[in-house]
């Protein structure tokens, strides 16, 4: 029971804590004027010194976006968003690559400190040269508002031929790869938010793993929205060449503000023959306060293409933040024998709303997919699992298993399940199961009887409920995720 005890301890330690990443960093920032138009796009593109093809691609996306309508099919209730009232570009004014820790803007340093990133790493994060190569654990690309602040362990990775850098840098470093794959999984006309992102994306991470290379460390991106009224539109592109392997982590936080902030990201994954990509997210954007004031609007398009035979893409997500979450990490299983996985824990409390799920498109033979979704709804939150499993006629022997469980805490919240299952191949086997339940009195009584407070007991039970998904997370994230589960549900009982 050691692990259990640990969980309870963690929850207790954090019991008084609300959203601990809710601070703002008072830092000089350079912003573009509010609103989105061709000039802003040209400005962003010029800032990044982008080649002409990319500017044209952005402009085409912008043209398409103007003709598109915001989707209203999700089970989400929010006021109209004024897309012209946000800043589309904000960057901390970094001096030219500081040489030592003393030269780095102390505000930026404090931010990293508060975000809980270790000091040694911090030096690297702020762009200080000379500290790389010490005790490598995770290579981090930190995105602060619209720009990538720093990427760590670049040199070490480069030795192996791995490219891990900001996407704005990749455009210069390996333009042929970016041009070949950007928009190849999520085309710029894909959907309203992806198209907006295509027009206005500012930064994000780029990863290329060469043939046969197993990436020796976890790659990670840390997204931070700091500026008020700023939309964050990052774009991530990961390419795993034949026989390679990479595990990628994504974390996000934002300051506590009364206004809603917009986050519309696009993530594209490409796995070639025998390649594996593991993508984990702990999304902890500011969720708004108990009355639903403020919080991030999180509209994210994430999609992976298993292009090659025996390739595999695995999505794991822990969604605890954001006022609104609209997110469906998907897999297109093109290669024969390719595998798609989706493990999700989504927790909504207070007035949070989440409409999340996945799509598994089976195209190749013997493609397999697994979906495990655990939704926990508390307070006055509304949560929906929305998923699609599609078996195309050529997908001989395809296999899917879906398990969606919802847990309701309190009688003011809602939990909904909307799976779509379309099968056009008889040899395919598709199974979907969904259950909804509450924490049973027996479980609670058992815990209370052993001296746990009600809140600790709930946290313990919920952690057990999510275990199937949490165990899929890399170690670094698993602990944080467990804590988050406890904190997110705070105040939901009693």
């Amino acid at each position: 029971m050691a692990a259990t005890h640990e969980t309870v301890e963690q929850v207790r330690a954090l019991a008084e804590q609300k959203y601990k990443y809710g601070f703002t960093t008072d830092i000089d920032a350079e912003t573009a004027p509010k609103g989105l138009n061709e000039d802003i796009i040209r400005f962003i593109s010029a800032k990044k010194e982008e080649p002409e093809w990319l500017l044209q691609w952005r402009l085409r996306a912008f043209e398409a976006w103007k003709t598109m309508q915001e989707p209203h099919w999700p089970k989400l209730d929010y006021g109209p968003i004024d897309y012209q009232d946000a800043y589309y570009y904000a960057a901390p004014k970094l001096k030219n690559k500081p040489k030592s820790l003393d030269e780095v803007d102390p505000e930026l340093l404090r931010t990293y400190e508060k975000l809980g990133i270790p000091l040694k790493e911090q030096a690297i994060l702020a762009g200080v040269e000379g500290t790389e190569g010490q005790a490598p654990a995770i290579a981090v690309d930190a995105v602060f508002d619209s720009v990538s602040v720093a990427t760590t362990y670049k040199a070490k990775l480069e030795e192996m031929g791995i490219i891990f850098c900001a996407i704005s840098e990749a455009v210069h470093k390996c333009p042929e790869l970016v041009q070949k794959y950007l928009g190849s999984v999520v085309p710029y006309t894909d959907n309203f938010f992806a198209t907006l992102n295509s027009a206005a994306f500012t930064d994000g991470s780029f990863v290329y793993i060469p043939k046969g290379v197993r990436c020796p460390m976890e790659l990670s991106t840390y997204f931070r929205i700091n500026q008020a009224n700023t939309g964050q539109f990052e774009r991530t592109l990961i390419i795993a060449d034949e026989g390679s392997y990479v595990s990628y982590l994504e974390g996000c936080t934002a300051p506590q503000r009364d206004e809603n902030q917009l986050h519309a990201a696009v993530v594209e994954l490409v796995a070639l023959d025998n390649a594996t990509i593991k993508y984990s997210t702990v999304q902890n954007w500011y969720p708004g306060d108990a009355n639903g004031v403020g919080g991030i609007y999180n509209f994210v398009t994430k999609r992976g293409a298993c292009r090659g035979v025996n390739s595999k893409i695995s999505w794991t997500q822990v969604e605890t933040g954001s006022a609104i979450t609209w997110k469906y990490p998907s897999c297109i299983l093109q290669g024969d024998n390719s595998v798609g996985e989706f493990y999700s824990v989504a927790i909504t409390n207070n007035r949070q709303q989440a409409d999340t799920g996945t799509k598994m498109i089976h195209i190749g033979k013997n493609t397999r997919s697994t979906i495990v979704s655990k939704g926990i709804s508390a307070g006055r939150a509304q949560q929906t699992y929305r998923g699609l499993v599609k078996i195309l006629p050529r997908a001989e022997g395809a296999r899917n298993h879906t398990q969606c469980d919802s847990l309701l805490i309190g009688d003011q919240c809602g939990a909904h399940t909307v799976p779509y299952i379309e099968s056009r191949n008889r040899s395919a086997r598709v199974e979907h199961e969904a259950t909804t339940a509450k924490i049973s009195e027996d479980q609670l009584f058992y815990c209370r009887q052993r001296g746990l407070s009600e809140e600790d007991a709930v946290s313990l039970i919920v952690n057990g409920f999510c275990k199937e998904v949490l165990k899929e997370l890399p170690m670094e994230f698993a602990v944080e995720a467990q804590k988050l589960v406890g904190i997110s549900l705070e105040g939901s009982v009693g």
Partner: protein
Amino acid sequence: MATTHSTPTGDTAAARPYLDQIDRLKGELPGAALSRVRELRRDGRERFAALGVPTVRQEAWKYTSLRPLEKVAFEPATAAAAAGTHIDVLPTVRPAGQTGPRLVFVNGRLRADLSSTDGLPDGVVLTGLADALSSHADFVGERLGRLANADEHPLVALNTAVLADGPVLHIPRGVVLDDPIELVFVSAAADGRATVFHPRTLIVADPLSKAVVIEHHVGPGGAPTFANHTAEVFVGEGATLRHYKVQREQTDAFHVSHAAATVCRDACYDNFILTSGARLSRNEVHAVLDGTGASCHVSGAYLVTGEQHCDTTTLIDHARPYGTSREVYKGAIDERARAVFQGKIIVRPGAQKTDGHQLNRALLLSDTAEIDSKPELEIYADDVKCSHGATAGELDDEALFYLRSRGIPKEEARGLLIASFLAEAIDEIPEEPVRDAFAAIATGWLAARRGGAR
């Protein structure tokens, strides 16, 4: 929420021919003297004109396209044609030689000459709506249009705009009907003309009553028919109503049906639909559990082949606490047929202790068959147990091998396995004669299938 924004509307241009028909029929409809009925029809027409014919751009019709309807110029059914249609054999679940209460409708109009209400206890009303609009004007006037929502459902609106005839059944308080009531609907295209009609069913089971109703839908074929049924079913406190339906129309028929039921306190509503007919069919069942401890069983089996398209859409609305619902649907889909299952369970705020269960399993028997399944849960109460399951696949190879290794020929073994697969749904029917009759229909379908191409 989606409701605050405009959802895509239907095809209002495609609604035009039907609106013209409504305007032409207006003068001939029975019950025009009743203001409530006039209002219903007027509102129905208005709503249908506004909603249009559903299209696949609308979520509720995502998987079922009514485009094929547009290619046929349907004429409204006439009373004369209905009266003149010759009927050889009427389907029944009764043993040969036995008779019982029965209403026969040809193209939605009552054929009194083929119907019988002998032996019904006093107080039970079983008649056609056209008749009831004069003989029981207040009774039907009060209830028509209360459950079937013409505001949201365009085809219900269309039905309401021209409601004229169909079965009316009223079982008074405490009356238990031992004999099942059979309702036979014949779709007949007179003189080879494509025909459309809109039968309206009203069933009222008063508190503590009990009855079994069996609907047979058949058609001799020859030319396309389009039957647009709407049924309203009131199940009073403590009443039990078992409502079974078998639809075996010809493969040039279109069959759309919307049954709206409200189930009061401690009452029980059973619905089972066996579908093997029609080129395009959609059975929509909406049951509202509107009293504490109400329960419903909404199940069915669909057997489709050729180019058939069969849509099953259910909505179980748990509005009160302690309700139970159970759904078991099984389907066998062969050749190029396509089946659709959309099942939704809503648990309203406060409907605590709800127990809802839903299962849809589909068997794909050919390389070109398709199943689209959308089981949905929408839950606003925490102390509930709700689950759904959906599967799609082919016959189990190992089971097949087991049978074949015991000397059973392949096709026969497959037939056995399909029959046992379907039995899981058919076994949900508690009434033995109905269960046997439905199982026999399924067996017949399998035999015909085997006798075909394979």
